[in-house]
């Protein structure tokens, strides 16, 4: 049986999301910006600010270069306790399959493990994304991590 185009597209997108998740969780941060377009937009913003059109974000990056800068600071300048992060992503949904920009959303839960504590829920929310195809490869042109977890347990070191 052959497959409707929208379902095939979702399968492709799931590959992109899986690559995103594993780059972060396996601490291959350097691979993470490669999943974005050069002039991408990325933000981690609370649902409260997002719903009230308050622009302030916990992270706000306006280019792939800014993502790369985040990676460099995590590696070189930020001081933080070592931790493991683990993403679970589900319910990917294509909102608009029009080219050039595909609009899609998904739910996520991020778990954090510090060295001396049991694993805890760090941050849950929704990805509100735009994806484009650049020479055959899907990349995020825009990614908003809109989080429910308005009261953040201490710090957000890594991207969500």
């Amino acid at each position: 049986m052959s497959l409707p185009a929208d379902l095939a597209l979702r399968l492709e997108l799931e590959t992109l999301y899986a690559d995103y998740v594993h780059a972060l969780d396996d601490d291959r941060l350097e691979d993470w910006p490669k999943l974005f377009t050069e002039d991408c937009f990325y933000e981690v913003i609370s649902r409260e600010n997002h719903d009230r059109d308050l622009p302030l974000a916990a992270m706000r990056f306006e280019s792939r270069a800014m993502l790369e800068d985040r990676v460099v600071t995590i590696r070189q300048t930020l001081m933080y306790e070592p931790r493991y992060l683990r993403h679970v992503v589900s319910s990917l949904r294509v909102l608009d399959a029009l080219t050039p920009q595909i609009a899609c959303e998904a739910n996520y839960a991020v778990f954090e493990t510090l060295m001396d504590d049991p694993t805890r829920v760090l941050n849950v929310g929704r990805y509100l994304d735009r994806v484009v195809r650049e020479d055959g490869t899907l990349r995020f042109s825009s990614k908003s991590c809109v989080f429910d977890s308005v009261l953040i347990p201490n710090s957000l070191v890594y991207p969500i």
Partner: protein
Amino acid sequence: MAAPSDNLIRRRWPEQGTSRVPYWAYSDPQLFEREMDLVFAGRSWNFVGLAAEVPEPGDYRQSAIGNRKVVLTRDERGELHVLLNRCAHRGVKFCRERQGNTRFFTCPYHQWRYDLTGRLRAVPFYNGVKQQGGMPESFQYADHGLQTLRVAQRNGVVFASFSEDVEPLEDYLGALLPWYDRVFDGRPLRLLGYSRQLIPSNWKLMFENIKDPYHASLLHVFLVSFGLFRADQPSRVLMDRTGRHAVLVSSKGEQAASEATRDMANLKEQFTLADPRLLDPVREFPGSATVAMLTLWPNLIVQQQSNTLAMRQLIPRGPESFELAWVFFGYEDDDEAMRVRRLRQANLMGPAGYVSVDDSEVMKLSQDGVRESVDAAGVLEMGGLDTGDTEHMVTEAAVRAFYKHYREVMGL
């Protein structure tokens, strides 16, 4: 972990006085209870919000003072009020929405109704039903309003006090008033958004952190590498008469290597950003200062770091935990470029900030280090043992001054 109640009696401040902070001050549950009463509910002005958060008549927003929950309201006449979020009937936290607009607060339990000033306006079935029940003669509405606080406002910032006899806000700010007015110069403020962190440490560690310029040049590699804050820059630490308030002032200079550079082990001279738009500060305040961090007793930090402006409200949750509530803002007359600049520079601050992550992480490490060490004490000798103003950053004077005042208030 719960300290036995007679500990507090047993406990004595170390004889070295201002140059020491005993570690029990960060974890004793009874000391915490006393702080809630004497520090936050005492003779102090507590930040509760910006007027811009409740611009219209009927607007309200939840806030907190110490561990007490309050509501900031603006009544029909435009006056601001701060009400305890606790129904006068049987104590329900009646206001549930973080913020909104209303004419009355109606407690969900029995629908007692209060106006925006906290006055009790309606008690259902006050006269009973069909000649049955209802309130006794002796019950007077006037006796059962919400607990209200004194309110003071200056240039768009709202403070409240549980104290009847605290001095006027301007006198309270004392020598810091000019620094306060530097940021709050009367221009209308524009709200940019909120950030909230639950930090697993004692609230006083946050004040220590901001009152301590010594750490800034050493912990914050990002700041230092970009010369945003360096020990060898012109800078000052100023306090009010009591020592409870302070301001750290610094001016970005050319990053000439100095004899101090050697001590900044983490300094990454050649560090640059792939996308420099994150950092293109412009001067917007009179004078040479590029950074001014105000710490206002007992619950507020006013942050001006380049072009990021934020209030940081301290909301203690317990001896070993506090909420840090950030309100980022600009001015109504900001142009779009400045608005975006503030949003970009906000990447330095908040729960994920290039600078403030260092601080929230180090505060947890402090708490982890001192938790079990009730008999030991921290050492505050950098810059000498006194508590006066300085024209440099190489000092813990403002931390010493803070604890000098703290001990007076707490009777320790």
